[in-house]
């Protein structure tokens, strides 16, 4: 964990809603793993006060790549940054996906901006493993296809791909993979993760969920980011024990 003053190398619009930002950040780039995140200070003033968490989207040598949506004040400021500006980045944070182990097929399921951590994950999954990506979004403008492999799409409004949620599509296609040894990696809005959790518990699937929640510190000192343990024994901290959890470990 370090704080790095990182220079912006490029910032571009991926769609009407999403931006891609590339920063020169060699210390963090060297360390960070898929599924981990960084906490970015978007101004050097006290407003907005807290850092914002963003998943690592990709790493290119010394560069970190993030994808973000303009959500509120902080991400609006981020979207107005220019090449050459500096960002104050704290990372790497969180546990990251567990890639190790034996499986023949990795199924990546992303909803909206939840697809953000998958490009780097795709890169890091062993080349012996097949990858299928299920990408969902509200409209076709909410689909992030950047660097993804073997893509299946769904939109809520039917503007591209399957008309419905990405979990509906996944459910329909699941029977085609069930004879393989699969591992599911998912990130997206809580209702999506909850639906997927239910399926994976019913069918006993190997499934990791990347959970989102409001955070103050991002590294375990504020206790602000609890998620209930499924065994009834209190809470995990999303920032430190997560953001990735096995689907059977948590209660939404």
């Amino acid at each position: 964990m370090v704080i790095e003053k990182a220079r912006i190398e490029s910032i571009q619009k991926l769609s009407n809603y999403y931006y891609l930002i590339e920063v020169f950040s060699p210390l963090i780039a060297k360390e960070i793993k898929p599924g981990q995140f960084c906490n970015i200070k978007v101004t050097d003033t006290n407003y907005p006060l807290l850092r914002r968490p963003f998943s690592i989207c990709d790493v290119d040598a010394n560069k970190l790549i993030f994808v973000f949506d303009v959500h509120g004040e902080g991400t609006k400021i981020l979207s107005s940054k220019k090449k050459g500006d500096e960002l104050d980045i704290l990372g790497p944070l969180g546990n990251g996906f567990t890639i190790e182990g034996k499986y023949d097929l990795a199924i990546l399921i992303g909803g909206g901006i939840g697809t953000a951590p998958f490009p780097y994950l795709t890169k890091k999954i062993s080349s012996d493993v097949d990858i299928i990506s299920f990408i969902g979004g509200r409209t076709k403008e909410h689909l992030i296809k950047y660097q993804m492999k073997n893509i299946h799409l769904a939109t809520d409004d039917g503007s591209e791909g399957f008309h419905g949620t990405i979990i509906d599509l996944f459910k329909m296609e699941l029977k085609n993979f069930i004879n393989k040894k699969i591992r599911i990696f998912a990130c997206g809005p809580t209702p999506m993760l909850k639906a997927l959790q239910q399926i994976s518990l019913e069918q006993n699937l190997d499934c990791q969920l990347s959970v989102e929640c409001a955070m103050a510190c991002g590294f375990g000192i504020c206790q602000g980011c609890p998620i209930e343990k499924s065994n009834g024994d209190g809470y995990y901290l999303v920032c430190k024990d997560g953001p990735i959890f096995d689907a059977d470990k948590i209660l939404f």
Partner: protein
Amino acid sequence: MDFKVKIGSLTLKNPILLASGTVGYGNEIAEFIDLSKIGGIVTKSISLKPRKGNPPQRICETPSGMLNAIGLANVGVEIFLKEKIPFLKNLNTTIICNIAASTIEEYVECTKILNEEESIAAFEINVSCPNVKEGGLEFGNNLEAVGRITEKVKSVTNKPVIIKLSPNVSRISDFAKVVKDNGGDAVSAINTLVGTSFNIWTRKPKIKNITGGLSGPAIKPIALAKVLEISRNVDIPIIGIGGIMDWKDVVEFMIVGASAVQLGTVNFVNPYASIEILDGLKNYCEKMSIKKISDLTASYIL
């Protein structure tokens, strides 16, 4: 340059402490900074039994501040002594143990047990947490209760006892006076202010507990006014807390009456803050030809 400060009988190597609840038990922040450089660390409020804390959502951001309703999540006295103290005692910094309780007996019981642990230099008694149903704020609001807690806790320890005051009262200096009259060694001011925030689209509160404690730069002017009020009315050492972000804020707190300060929310945003602040203070003292930093305390000119 002399950076040492005294809080009653307690001597700190410098006036920078890390505030309870904003550094856990020290280990995470130790990845960023050398804790032996700072004046001390105030541990997360410990209660007799472990507390799970409040359900999410526990925090939300506000203009230049944040609301929290963590609900005193902590490991309890037993695990604290077994698992957390070994790390803390090796740090070569002053450990102040913060205690929270639902009854006066529980404060006393906790203090008695923790008093045995040599590496704990002093106790900070939290009578002012706004986020728990029992005790907490009700104590902090009640002059007689604060007096009784001070007296009872003092009667079971020879270590310095600091009472952490609530700002959610009309005259905080009355509480400081009660602490002094009952043998308390110092006061910490302030704990968080009660606040709330609602989502305008769902009309629901943003944190599950409905209200939370407001901290961060948003509360600094209030905290300064409370420290000044105590300083002008009661002769007792004050540890200033509330919205400190940099060395200038520390100087301001000391001028209005603080002998030392605690850093809270800033640790979340900038875990290096305490070390940067020490450097800033050194430069300031050089520039101002201040030989002893304690000379700043209550040096206000009205």
